């Protein structure tokens, strides 16, 4: 997990793929909003490490699609849904 520093009102975790255009837009949006968040590129993980994170994502989003954004360990947003993301992080 990498951390992008910023406003920490919410705990925001972004599960992404390094090759995906919508994941890049989501990461850019969170950065532009000044939100502190952690992110991980699931495609760059290998073997067991990837398996562990994949199961984590599947808990929130059984389709295992990206980006999956988990807010405050309680709510997941699937896909680059700009309005929903803005609302959830209170920006």
């Amino acid at each position, binding site marked *: 997990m990498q951390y992008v520093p910023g406003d920490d009102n919410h705990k925001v975790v972004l599960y992404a*793929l*390094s*090759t*995906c*255009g*919508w*994941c*890049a837009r989501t990461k850019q949006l969170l950065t532009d909003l000044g939100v502190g968040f952690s992110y991980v590129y*699931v*495609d760059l993980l290998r073997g067991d490490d990837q398996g562990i994170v*994949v199961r984590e994502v*599947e808990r929130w989003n*059984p*389709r*295992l*699609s*990206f980006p999956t954004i988990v807010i405050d360990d309680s709510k997941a947003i*699937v*896909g*680059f*849904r700009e309005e929903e993301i803005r609302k959830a992080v209170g920006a």
Partner: protein
Amino acid sequence: MVSDKDVDRLVQDLAREAEAGGYHLNPDREFTRGLVRGLLANRERYGYISCPCRLASGNREDDLDIICPCDYRDLDLADYGACYCGLYVTADVEAGVRTPEPVPDRRPSPVERRKKKEENVTVARAPGDLKYPVWRCRVCGYLCARNEPPETCPICRVSRDRFERFV
């Protein structure tokens, strides 16, 4: 590492093939280049251009449905005006008269895929009394009646292993 030149070349090839087949690449050049860079990164990693916006397993057989163009492209173009990644768009989106909608992933979940794989093994093919089997391209729906599917789909250019027996 994927070079800018490789990206340019593949963008050009894809654009030419797309237009020849009645498909269109996303006119947002930077976005499209990013996705094509992803396709090339996947070719380096896995040996085939699997979808940049989906997690590949690295096993070609399990990833066949998401090798670009994926089995879901044409359905998503029809319903949303763009493929899941946004690499391909419809003519009206390309022309800027329609905004594409966000595309939910219609690929079955890992659990559903495992189930389907098991079913495919157990279900025997119904015998037809046709002179030739009919093959269907999973990507574009092209049908042909011959002993084997063609090496390359003449419509959308995908490889033989993307065909399924239809009748």
